[in-house]
């Protein structure tokens, strides 16, 4: 196990856009050699990768593991197994559990649980304010000492720019990222889907795009004024992308993410009141989809995060107005993006790896896993010809709230490697 050669794998090497066929030698969990043809020494395991893509394993900076508090929807164990099934070896767990992760003690507790229940390392985010109430800063230094890398109130958007300002200032001494969910609750309250022709037709209360646009613009202005380190979650609007582009050009220290579903669906897909299409922010328009893709291509948006949000069948079977927001995403992200963007040539393999593996790892302060000699070997083996069927039987997550349920996607993850371990059986 300590010495292996991955033979004739299609690999996207740093600085290249197209896959090259190479051999890759791994020694003690690190990449030891990359060359067109390697002669296996005696006793070296050889893995035949012909026709398959070997790529850096993925990292998701936005995952709701639901434990503690909502173990009927997901647990640390089931959530991380879902991550492995989807090709992720690193995730950032969000703090909106019950009770919320808003103290150093809670951060330590979740990390110690993850050590025994998860086969992959789990990074933890803490709350920005106590109880996610948006009023009083949580003890950020305590949480940083316990290893938290981000503070965020998740979908409780900060209503108070003063609190955001102080958070961005205070975190500067602790190497801590402030994660913001941009929204203007006064404009979005009561809404359940994007406000537009589809919401009128379906008779559902709308969430206007300006709720997010104003939120993003406000957050960026505060970050610019106090020189804070901010990460914008869940960007869904074209105007939001434009704001981030403008402020990044002025040097604001900000990163941003969008999700696979905001890239691949829009509000017109929301037929028959299927609550697997209900999420916050809501699915927007075709124009927004295009702007998000453009933002990922030019680097305005740094990464794709799934926002994996498990909910039980019971909760999602409520009517559209009352069902909770959010969908699971870990197990569909790679195949769905491959199927809809890489196969038709809208997104290159190198872009996908950057946005779904390398950039989120950098955000979380983890060692890079780009294929370079000496780098940790965290990788996945992907067959672009095979298909993946998404069903209740195949999903490892405890919840099934995904719009891809019952769908078949082009591409399949065959193995996930973490150092010397093969994570998929």
């Amino acid at each position, binding site marked *: 196990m300590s010495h292996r050669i991955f033979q004739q794998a299609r690999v996207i090497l740093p600085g290249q856009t197209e896959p090259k066929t190479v051999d890759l030698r791994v020694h003690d969990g690190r990449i030891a050699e990359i060359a067109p043809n390697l002669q296996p020494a005696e006793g070296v395991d050889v893995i035949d990768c012909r026709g398959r893509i070997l790529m850096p394993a993925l990292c998701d900076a936005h995952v709701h593991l639901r434990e503690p508090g909502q173990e009927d929807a997901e647990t640390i164990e089931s959530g991380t197994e879902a991550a492995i099934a989807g090709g992720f070896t690193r995730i950032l767990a969000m703090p909106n559990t019950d009770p919320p992760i808003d103290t150093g003690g809670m951060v330590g507790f979740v990390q110690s649980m993850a050590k025994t229940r998860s086969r992959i390392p789990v990074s933890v985010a803490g709350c920005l304010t106590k109880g996610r109430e948006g009023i009083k800063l949580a003890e950020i230094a305590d949480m940083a000492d316990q290893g938290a890398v981000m503070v965020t109130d998740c979908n409780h958007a900060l209503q108070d720019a003063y609190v955001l300002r102080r958070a961005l200032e205070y975190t500067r001494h602790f190497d801590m990222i402030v994660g913001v969910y941009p929204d203007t609750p006064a404009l979005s309250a009561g809404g359940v889907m994007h406000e537009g022709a589809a919401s009128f037709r379906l008779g*559902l209360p709308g969430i206007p795009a300006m709720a997010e646009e104003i939120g993003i613009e406000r957050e960026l202005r505060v970050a610019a004024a106090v020189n804070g380190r901010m990460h914008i979650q869940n960007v869904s609007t074209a105007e939001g992308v434009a704001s981030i582009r403008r402020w990044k050009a002025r040097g604001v220290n900000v990163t941003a993410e969008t999700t696979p579903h905001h890239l691949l669906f829009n509000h017109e897909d929301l037929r028959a009141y299927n609550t697997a299409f209900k999420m916050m922010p809501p699915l927007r328009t075709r124009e927004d989809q295009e702007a998000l893709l453009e933002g990922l291509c030019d680097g305005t948006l740094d990464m794709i995060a799934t926002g994996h949000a498990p909910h039980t069948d019971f909760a999602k*079977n409520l*009517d559209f107005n009352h069902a909770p927001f959010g969908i699971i995403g870990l197990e569909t992200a790679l195949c769905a993006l491959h199927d809809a963007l890489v196969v038709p040539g809208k997104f290159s393999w190198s872009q996908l790896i950057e946005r779904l593996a390398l950039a989120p790892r950098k955000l979380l302060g983890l060692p890079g896993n780009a294929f370079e000699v000496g780098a940790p070997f965290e990788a996945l083996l992907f067959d672009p010809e095979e298909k993946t069927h998404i069903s209740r039987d195949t999903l490892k997550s405890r919840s099934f709230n995904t719009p891809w349920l019952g769908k078949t996607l082009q591409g399949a993850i065959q193995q996930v490697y973490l150092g010397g371990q093969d994570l998929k059986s």
Partner: protein
Amino acid sequence: MKTVTPRKDLLSFDDMSREEALAILDTAKPFKDLFTRSVKKVPTLRGKTVLNLFYEPSTRTRTSFEIAAKRLSADVTNFAVSTSSVVKGESILDTIDTLQAMQVDYMIVRHSASGVPEYIARHTKASVINAGDGYHAHPTQALLDAFTYREIYPDLQGKRIVVAGDILHSRVARSVFALMHLLGVEVGTFGPAPLIPPTIPDYVKVFTRFEEVLEFNPQVLYLLRLQLERQTANFFPSMREYHRVYGVTTERFRRIREMGMYIMHPGPVNRGVELVDDVMSYERSLINAQVENGIATRMAVLYHLTPEVKTRSGETEDHA
């Protein structure tokens, strides 16, 4: 009568053709004629069970459906559902499974959330009639309105209607727009700008002044009921101002009468808000006719639908 593909449910007009809408309206006519006879009942739905499943309080619509079903000789049950338990998370599916076991043939569903009748329809073999869901649709209301309109103008092609009031929160408006458009009626609307979103269908003409409504000269002015809580959400400043700018005031009523315009309203009326009291006794107010026609139209809808509920093999309907 033209034949149309059997339909299990009536949820909205999204998938309905003009022929089918006309077929339902034509069927309602003989049912209405029945009401003048001493025996008002026909045996059409004898042995069938119709269930009123109202998650939102409504005496008028529920009673209208109940009378319609009884005049077709169906057995009618009102299933009382507490609205609060739904919000608490009691599954609608649990209720549907229970009712499915009782072999119900028709379910009349009203719910405050859009999409619930559609959801129920997907999970039951019974025919589901949407009796109003959220802001989405209220198809039997629109059908009875069209029936009432056709009693005066048998051919609606090229006729005009203006729907006035709170379009944003109105399932009646959405269904009336859709059905009138389907029947070839030119549709206009009038009301406070925050309640008339730019996302309404393209075929609806938006008027910003009452004078424009008069110039359009619709045969029917359709006033929607204004929910009194809208003013607290600042959609408009006050009832007084609403009435002055968007309501049928005494002065406007005089003009309407001069022009011979008909008035419709789905009820119940807020006197002094949508209209002044005088309109209620106006000879061209169709408000009472709408209520009366609700029964015949709903009979026609029940008659028109085909549940998937099967009898045991070898048994025919007659033996049951």
